[in-house]
């Protein structure tokens, strides 16, 4: 049973900015981690700041993620430190809404 979900937005904007590749790389990187599951997500609504990745239940939102950030995000998912430099650019009200939806099981 996975404990940490790495949710990678796969809607139009994020995808155009390479979130498909991020999903593949993270899936590959974390495939041997029993406690982590990488999943595509329909949309977090933070399209201007994408690609967006949310770690749940840690409630950490990474915006503007690039392929060179994959290592650090994977390390966080496996229990390492949060990647502070990627946690900006998303308004709190949107974060609250999305975290509530995730709490309700919407992923």
């Amino acid at each position, binding site marked *: 049973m996975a404990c940490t979900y790495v949710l990678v937005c796969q809607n139009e904007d994020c995808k155009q900015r390479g979130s498909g590749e991020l999903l593949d790389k993270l899936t590959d990187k974390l495939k041997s981690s029993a406690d982590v599951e990488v999943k595509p997500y*329909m*949309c977090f609504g933070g399209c201007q700041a994408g690609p967006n990745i949310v770690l749940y239940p840690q409630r950490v939102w990474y915006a503007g993620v690039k392929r060179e950030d994959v290592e650090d995000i994977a390390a966080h998912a496996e229990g390492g430190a949060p990647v502070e430099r990627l946690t900006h650019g998303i308004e709190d009200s949107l974060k609250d*809404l999305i975290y509530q939806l995730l709490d*309700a*099981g919407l992923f």
Partner: protein
Amino acid sequence: MILFPQGRPTHRETFGEYCAAGGYQAVTKNILDEIIASGLTGRGGAGFPVGRKWSVAAETDADARYIICNAGEDEPGSFKDRVLLEYRPHLVLEGIILAARAIAAERAYVYLNETYDECFSRMTTAIDDAKAAGYLRGITVTVHPAPTVYVAGEDSAAIEVLEGKPPKPRQKPPYPAAAGLFGKPTVVNNVETLANVPPIVRNGATWFRRFGTPEYPGTMIFCLGEEMRDPGAYELPFGTTLRQLYENVGGGLKDHQQLKAILPGGPSCAFLTADQLDISLDPESLNQAGSSLGCGVMRFYPEGTCMVDETLRIAQFFARESCGQCPACRMETEMLSTILERIRQGKGDAALFNQFQKIIDFNRGKGYCALINMPGPPIMSALRLFGEEFEFHLQHGGHGSCE
């Protein structure tokens, strides 16, 4: 009636017949004043006062103005524009000509659903006939195909298409009446709206106000679907009761099925229940009942309909038809349909029920067009009126109380 002599489309009128019945006669009145006095409102769904829209276009300083007759009709279940263009093309064309004269426009476009082949031939013939007879004098009218996607019928999306771009709504303001096609004042009116113009100009605003209610003069064409004994398009005065439309005009549901729910104005309005049939068919009364009249597409659902399925279908429609340019709209429509799908399949917990209103509130008004506000009324009304069906689905993952 005002649009169809017998209140429904019965005869495909020719140019000669239209002229013989008083069509295309010289106009001595001030067209704009007459339309303002008539109280005519838009029939495409938003119900904006036509005289106000025209006044903005007429009063905005410009070297060109445009009329767009919006026949992009792609609302599920709506075919009123199609029957008007097929049966009374000259009534619509004269409405376009009068609108153009009222705002001093020299160019008009019929923005026509690309699948409406017969309308295309009827309208191009009508334009040719009227032009040959000298009724277009100084006004050029052409027909342009409208893509069959829902947002293509939105007024600013129609303008984008006519400018050669994809059908995506523009941010407003400016509104098209002030700055529309090629940045010039542009009146975008629905087919039915324009069809009301010649009778008003010919017979006067006072005559027009004899139909309907004081607040909402005139008639509206209501579309009844195949679930009814007598499906079709029917013109009725505002203020007619929903019961009159349902029982007397439509003949009730087929096979004497019992009525369960009503969607009185297309997929973006709130559901009503069978005990609300005595409501008056006018925008105000429908609003008071928490719903809306939209463009007059009526759907009646028989007992046995699964309202979870129906609501999901509507949510999926908006998710599919969101043009995708506004992040909030894309997120909202996707989320709402995903949550409903989860509930339908019984995958999730009761906390899902609390998420709908939060998502809707968070995103309200955050799109360029009205689509972002559309899934809310049907979903929230379905949850309120048929909550036990949703709860059953969530608990058991299937039909039960709704069967």
